[in-house]
């Protein structure tokens, strides 16, 4: 599979507010490749640099050092800025602050309007995107009548309409209730499965990461773990040390192993846990 995102030696420092102060380095040398069609979770606590990393993927921020290439486009290439942003769409945390229009379907059309897509084509893509996220019936509603989860789905539809190859979601569920979280996660998993869109999900909820193909854990501006969820979560001590959770079942298994039980550390789902405990008692 081809790499859609290639990050090489990425360093980023914010310019200091006052003169004479040292710049604050947020990203300290990141190398990361993401394959077309992958579903990657980037996990880390607040301030670890994960949102800053996300902002590099569609040129909201540019590297101080190193390169970021998305679908063959260097993010520093100003001439291809719109092309880049079409291919790698971004969804943010606060559902209210990314909806521009007072009518759902017009918001979904916003990017297409900016790109000058002709009407017939725009109409078709807006309707398709709204159907894809299950918000077609709400197309004439005002965003203020929608729940948080529905607003996030509208935001996702607005990105899908650009027909991107990759969607970057920066803590899209942090402000939602459990129902809304489920809706949004189900939607992005479906986009990944059915349309083959690469997903980069920035989050601090470990349960969201447990369902992904790959988990990248960040701490202090660096990638500290990068593997399939089972392998990442089995590092319970390491994750706890950097202020992250592991699924309860993984923690239980880890505790049991510490007490000398013979049980696999790579358990992240309930079914696996049930089976393992049964086995423990069957022996």
């Amino acid at each position, binding site marked *: 599979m081809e790499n859609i995102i290639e990050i090489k030696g990425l360093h980023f420092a914010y310019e200091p507010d006052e003169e004479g102060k040292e710049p604050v380095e947020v990203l300290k040398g990141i190398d990361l490749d993401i394959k077309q069609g992958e579903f990657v979770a980037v996990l880390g606590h607040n301030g670890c640099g994960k949102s800053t990393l996300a902002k590099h993927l*569609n040129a*909201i921020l540019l590297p101080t050092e190193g390169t970021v290439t998305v679908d063959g486009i260097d993010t520093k290439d100003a001439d291809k800025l*719109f092309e880049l*942003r*079409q291919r790698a*769409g*971004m969804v*943010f945390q*606060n559902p*209210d*602050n*990314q*909806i*521009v*229009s*007072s*009518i759902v*379907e*017009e918001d979904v*059309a*916003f*990017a*297409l*309007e*900016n*790109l*000058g*897509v*002709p*009407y017939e084509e*725009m*109409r078709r893509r*807006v309707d398709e995107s709204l159907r894809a996220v299950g918000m077609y019936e709400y197309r004439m509603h*005002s*965003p*203020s009548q929608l729940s948080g989860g529905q607003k996030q789905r509208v935001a996702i539809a*607005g*990105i899908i309409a*650009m027909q991107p190859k990759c969607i970057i979601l920066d803590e899209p569920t942090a402000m939602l209730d459990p129902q809304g979280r489920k809706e949004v996660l189900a939607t992005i998993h479906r986009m990944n499965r059915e349309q083959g869109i690469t997903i980069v999900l920035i989050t601090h909820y470990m349960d969201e990461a447990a369902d992904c193909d790959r988990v990248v854990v960040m701490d202090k501006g660096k990638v500290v773990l990068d593997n399939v969820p089972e392998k990442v979560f089995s590092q319970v001590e390491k994750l706890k040390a950097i202020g992250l959770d592991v699924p309860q079942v993984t923690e239980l298994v880890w505790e049991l192993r510490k007490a000398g039980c013979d049980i696999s550390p790579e358990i992240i789902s309930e079914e696996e846990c049930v089976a393992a405990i049964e086995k423990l008692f069957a022996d």
Partner: protein
Amino acid sequence: MLKDITIGQYFPGNSIIHRLDPRFKIVITLIYIIMLFSGGNYICLAVGAAFTFGAILLSRIPVKMFWKSVKPLLPFLVITAVLNLLLMSSGEVLWKWKFLRITEDGLNTSLFMVIRIVLLIMGTSLLTYTTSPITLTDAIERLLSPLRKVKFPVHELAMMMSIALRFIPTLIEETDKIMSAQKARGAEIDTGSFATRAKNLISILVPLFISAFRRADELATAMECRCYHGGEGRTRLRQLKSAPRDYIALAVTVLFLVGVIVLGKLV
């Protein structure tokens, strides 16, 4: 509660008036205003009133809603009427007391003016009652688009308007929340002396401003991510298409205008 306030006075519906092209509606309203001010006698006014009530009937919006739009302006109406009544000195004197006197001309001018303003309010309300604010903004943008040639920022103004409309409900909800939060900390907002209330207003305004700026910042980034770069080369999802009914409505309005002008000259 603040939440109960309805913003914009749009009454969704599907009447012929609702369905008219908003650009035509704006032009028709302008002609209507000219019509009201070009007739100088009661007959002209009656024709204007007939036009107004005809349109209101077609819109299927209850007449009492229009009374609601006139009501807030009543004090203004009464004051201007009284001033006109007392300051007009020509014509036959009907009533006199010390230096105050009411003349026939005064009475006529006041009455005429009041009816004219009431009709004006009712007619323009019909425009906002039957057109959603966002459609209205859009129509204004398109009507003014020729001004782009002289570098007038038509698109930018319309974008600002529509973002404002989009965020009004959000900010109202937010104000409600902040008010409750400060009340929970003992701030007196609807009770207490004027001075305490004014002081406590700061505890609501500061968070509200900070949040509005944060929202603006985040929205700007989100818009950039969706390739926003001003009005250049933009296409639109909302298509305004004029239908035969729009031209008929416009023709009828122009006929009324001509009628009023002719009647004004003849009578």
